[in-house]
């Protein structure tokens, strides 16, 4: 990151730190969201990071944007920041204009069907759809994938959530018009799945950063049997395990970001996503075990992060998806894995 971008990250983290109280995150459970935080970001044009200046954006690259996603995970910010910016990023990627109103995105394994320029069908678990004006998603026509935009006025929306109470709505379209129909090459389609996965990985790493931080802090403050619990070997073991998973997750993310920036991604996003699957499980388990009973109460904020990890790990292109992709690649590869791992 350049110095200027470091600054943006600093501004955003300060906003999140100050404005995203526990109560702000809990808003989701009452059907509200972090509108105020979102407005602050918009006022600061943060939602335009990684949009080219020619498109009215603030400039910046994948690194800047994914770092902000990590912060969204780290503070469990209840706003559609990732979805909106990713939608616009994807539009840019296919040389299309970003949308002005609030957008969401849904790149998943089951695309809509496109017939004569109209779409009919359903999308399940669409993030933040109830608040968005447009959706960027996929459609197939005669076996070919297109990137499309639909105005959500054309959708019937049934509200639902994920495990962390984040909006994940079910949409139904009947002969809906599309605002864009961009035919995707297979390579482009694959890249979109990678981009979506990298975004999710970024959020997950942020949530891990925080679950680890909370646990460290708790282990210093909490006393049992007359001393702070971090003095017990079994608690130290949990802390060491957490430190390991946090470091592995963080370096996995840094690595895929560097590769994305250079346009050199091969299997690494799949690897990172699989690593985050494991890390999420291990971190949630150890963080809760150290916090003991206090950590499973609604009053404590740990669950903001562990519930998100449990939710995110089963959304969009999850571990099972990537394991199958990798298995298929291995099956047809004439290289050894060592050759593949060390070739860039």
């Amino acid at each position, binding site marked *: 990151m350049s110095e200027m971008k470091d600054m943006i990250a600093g501004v955003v983290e300060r906003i999140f730190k100050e404005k995203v109280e526990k109560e702000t995150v809990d808003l989701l459970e009452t059907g509200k969201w972090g509108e105020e935080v979102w407005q602050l970001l918009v006022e600061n044009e943060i939602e335009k990071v990684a949009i080219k200046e020619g498109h009215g954006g603030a400039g910046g690259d994948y690194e800047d944007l994914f770092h902000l996603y990590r912060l969204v995970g780290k503070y469990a910010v209840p706003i559609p920041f990732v979805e909106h910016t990713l939608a616009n990023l994807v539009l840019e990627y296919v040389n299309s204009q970003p949308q002005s109103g609030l957008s969401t995105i849904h790149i998943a394994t089951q695309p809509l069907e496109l017939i004569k320029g109209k779409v009919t069908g359903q999308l399940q678990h669409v993030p933040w759809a109830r608040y968005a004006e447009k959706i960027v998603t996929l459609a197939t026509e005669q076996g070919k994938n297109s990137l499309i935009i639909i105005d959500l006025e054309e959708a019937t929306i049934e509200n639902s959530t994920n*495990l962390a109470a984040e909006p994940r709505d079910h949409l139904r379209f009947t002969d809906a018009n599309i605002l864009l129909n961009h035919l995707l090459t297979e390579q482009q389609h694959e890249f979109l799945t990678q981009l979506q996965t990298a975004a999710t990985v970024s959020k997950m790493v942020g949530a891990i950063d925080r679950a680890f931080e909370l646990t460290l802090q708790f282990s210093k403050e909490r006393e049992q049997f007359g001393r702070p619990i971090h003095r017990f070997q079994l608690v130290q073991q949990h802390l060491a395990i957490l430190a390991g998973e946090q470091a592995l997750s963080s370096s996995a993310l840094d690595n895929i970001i560097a590769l994305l920036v250079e346009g050199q991604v091969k299997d690494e996003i799949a690897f990172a996503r699989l690593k985050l699957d494991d890390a999420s499980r291990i971190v949630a*388990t150890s963080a809760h075990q150290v916090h003991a*009973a206090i950590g*499973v109460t609604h*009053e404590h904020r740990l669950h903001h992060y*562990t519930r998100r990890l449990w939710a995110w790990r*089963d959304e969009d292109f999850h*571990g099972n998806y990537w394991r199958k992709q990798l298995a298929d690649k291995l099956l047809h590869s004439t290289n050894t894995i060592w050759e593949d791992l060390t070739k860039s």
Partner: protein
Amino acid sequence: MNLPSVQFTKEQEEFRVEVRTFLQRELQKGTFQTKCDSWLSGSDPAFSKLIAEQGWIGLTWPKEYGGAERSSIDRYILTEEFLAIGAPVAAHWFADRQTGPLLLRFGTEFQKKLFLPKIVKGECFFAIGLSEPNSGSDLASVRTKAEKVEGGWIVNGAKTWTSNAQDAHFMITLVRTEPVSEKKHHGLSQLIVDLKSEGVTIAPIRYLTGEHHFNDVFFDNVFVADDMVVGAIGNGWAQGLAELAFERSGPERILSTFPLLNETIEELKRRQDINGLAHAAKLVAELWSLRNLSIGVAKVLEEGGEVGVPAALVKSVGTKFEQKIPEVVRMLLDVYPHLQAERDLDRFLAESTLHAPGFTIRGGTSEVLYGIIAKGVLAR
């Protein structure tokens, strides 16, 4: 460690069929919905009443108090069937599992006559007041105080993590009846507190899902009559310990997420997924071996043997198994866990995942159990 191997008798198997048939019928009638971790998170007083009507509360207790004088193996079978089908038995659970045996062992005749028949009828539920704010695993650091007054005791203090106090009528409450001394296990006593007494306040502690299973219970000059003291004054710690073996070795330390495993295997069968089934078979084998051990402990308990260490062992291994099920399942099938999901698999997975952290904490953390087990085997 060698525990007896139990083979069920024909009568016991018939009893299992009887229970299962009843539960399946009620499930089909819609009386309840299968849920993971239902023994702690599924409180339904009406359902408990129905169970009482079958004579299935206080199954092992003497007939003179309304019990059926059946064996602990019968009770084991009954409990297993509740858990396997995920029935909402939390309302009467603690009275049946802990309060009954406690009163039978240490209670006065008056207490037995007063409470047991009501428990058996499903009309009287108990909570257990053990943990206190800031006490955590250090259970003996009790600060709730009972001071002697004419005809009884005045209780001041607070208990926390009290499961189901909101539906309970009474609470077995561990209090300090002597000033704290060097040995903090001394001077503790168990009182039966009527939760409707003046000075008792029950405040929900919401679980991370927002659900209400746990409570803070506050005591502000609550009067407890002398005849509500359980056992001997000052003997509360030893009496409480005796309960723990019942609490730690039961099938509820193995089967909390069983409905998810069952549904997973049914789904894999529907998908003809032989590879997935091979993985799931490993979980079934683990369950089988844990169950042998747990039943073995039940048998020793029935014969009055000492089971502190093996019970701790069942809990420490069993609860890790319960936690493992949702983690394996999501590798075997594509899922979207959600508490209100239409598909049972997704719902059971959400219940299991969200409740899993508690398994290795409640009733003794794994860390505390490791110490108990290690010291136990070293001492032999």
